[in-house]
């Protein structure tokens, strides 16, 4: 199937001032390779600070790339300037849906104007704009559209605002969308609605979606593939079903174990946890970055960085002990 976006060994470093004169390098992304095809959703899962949001913004070129390539439909956009991205139409073809439905909409603009803005910027005619705005609002089930166009964001619920965000992202007919935690700030009872909506729109418009989340359970329902990130690197990636059914990387296994399910028996036992906290990305551990928290880390893990290797069809893991874990010789939990 046709590939929409490809990241090749992408690195994003920041210079961070520390102390009076010194500065350190913060490696937000440290060599990430990933591609997304048409009508495919790839979920990027990880804890805060793992670089998943940076990944999304770099792929859209909202941030500059330190090294590596960002390729949109065979065109390398990694070094393009803002004006060029706009002029060559890339800003029309790639969009983002934000996490916070409250701060992502300009409170001074009407819903209709918010959705129309991308079209205005790209020089559409008035009649075209009106029609496209109505169609986009209908697509996200804000119906009838005429009831919404003149309202202000504060008059809508969180779920409705998030649909406005989706409509705004859709209105230019993008081929690639980054959804950055689109449901984490919405009431639980409305989350599934937004996720299902995203999925059906992706199918009807044949887009590629990068779904960024900390909630691995939601990834299960919307994505075909999953990439688990830890400290700016991909620890494990593969088909969603495969990763969830046979997780191999100790981090993935522990992450899956720490997700609670509503079960009254929970209170009689302790939740399985990953010990400690993620190390500072300013001072990442040597070797495998997870070794400081890994229950099965060996001397080798402290020294040698594991490569991302395909252990099952389409299922890649960066762990020295992957084979032992798969065979059951070593238990993570």
């Amino acid at each position, binding site marked *: 199937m046709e590939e929409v976006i490809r990241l090749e060994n992408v690195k994003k470093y920041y210079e961070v001032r520390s102390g009076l004169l010194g500065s350190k390098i913060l490696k937000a992304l440290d060599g990430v390779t990933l591609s997304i095809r048409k009508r495919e959703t790839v979920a990027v899962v990880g804890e805060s600070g793992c670089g998943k949001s940076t990944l999304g913004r770099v792929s859209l070129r909202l941030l500059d790339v330190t090294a590596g390539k960002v390729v949109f439909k065979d065109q390398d956009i990694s070094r393009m300037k803002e004006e060029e991205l706009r002029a060559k139409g890339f800003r029309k073809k790639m969009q983002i849906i934000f996490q916070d439905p409250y701060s992502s909409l300009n409170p001074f603009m009407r819903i209709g104007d918010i959705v129309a803005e991308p079209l205005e910027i790209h020089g559409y005619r008035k009649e075209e704009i009106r029609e496209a705005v109505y169609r986009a609002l209908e697509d996200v089930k804000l119906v009838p559209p005429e009831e919404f166009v003149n309202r202000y964001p504060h008059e809508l619920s969180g779920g409705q605002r998030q649909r406005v965000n989706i409509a705004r992202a859709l209105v230019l007919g993008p081929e690639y969308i980054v959804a950055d935690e689109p449901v984490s700030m919405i009431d639980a009872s409305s989350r599934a609605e937004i996720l299902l909506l995203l999925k059906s729109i992706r199918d009807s418009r044949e887009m590629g979606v990068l779904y960024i989340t900390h909630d691995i359970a939601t990834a299960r329902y919307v994505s075909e593939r999953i990439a688990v990130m830890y400290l700016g690197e991909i620890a494990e990636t593969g088909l969603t079903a495969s990763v969830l059914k046979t997780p191999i990387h100790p981090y993935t296994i522990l992450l899956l174990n*720490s997700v609670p399910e509503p079960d009254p028996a929970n209170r009689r036992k302790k939740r399985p*946890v990953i010990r400690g906290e993620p190390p500072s990305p300013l001072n990442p551990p040597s070797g495998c970055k997870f070794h400081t928290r890994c229950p099965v880390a060996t001397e080798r893990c402290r020294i040698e960085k594991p490569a991302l290797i395909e252990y099952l069809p389409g299922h890649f893991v960066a762990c020295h002990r992957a084979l032992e874990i798969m065979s059951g010789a070593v238990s993570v939990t």
Partner: protein
Amino acid sequence: MNEALTVEGLKVYYRTEKGTVRAVDDVSFSLARGESLAVVGESGSGKSTLGLTLIRALPANASIVSGRVYINGEEILSLSLSDFRRRYSWRVISMVFQGAMNSLNPVLKVGDQIAEPLIYNGGASRGEAQRRAMDMIELVGLPREFYYRYPHELSGGMRQRIVIAMSLVMNPRILILDEPTSALDVTIQAQIINLVKDLIEKLSLSVMFITHDLALASDIADRIMVMYGGQIVELGSAERVLGEAPKHPYTEKLLASIPRLRGETIPEFIPGRPPDLASPPPGCRFHPRCPYVFDKCRSEEPPLFKVGEGHVARCWLHGE
């Protein structure tokens, strides 16, 4: 007497530009000694207002319209505020506020912030207070030397531990936790929840755990109280509310909307939006979103029906 806390007919309204918002509308329940009660609801259900009322910390535009709250048999809403603060705040009932970990004073050592109420409210000497604060820091699983750290030197999880230590420093019997983990990653969330479990057992606390997450509630709660639109819609033991079929359609749909890692169920959603508490719908407040709605629901407000041993639900499906 076995009740640590009893709430009777509590109504708390806010005055806003839109009119009177009935944030808590006729809520009655009790919390037994050593019991953990989860108060579950989405934004606007009145769960946070309920917590603030119990520690007498409502904002200025809120007023308690009616109701009584008994702690250890004494009515506390009729006490003067200074009386309540002197005798109850911190030492009998305390609360971990939502987002408190982000509102620690950035220029004070965290240990001093823990010790503060001991000195100003408990009359302890500096040395005593410092020793006690260090004990608390150890109790929440951090090294004693963390007394001298500043908030910015700590991670989110560590700050949350400090906030919990603060709430426990005067040895209260009742602890209210308002979304203590909502800003944390799952892996850290699990650590904090385990800590809270430990503390409940070690200190035999009575706990009111306010959350929007039923799965999280199941981790701690003996009983679960589901709130919707300022009212209790279902209250019962965790086994009954989560284990057997829930008795209120809202609870049922809320459970069904949780995405699961295991099993084949696909998460559902509840169409529509929560009621506007300035002008709630007539009849049952959930009726515009309820899949089982019938005529009576639209006109008459259901009372809480008894649906089992210690289990009530506000739904006409269980009444005549």
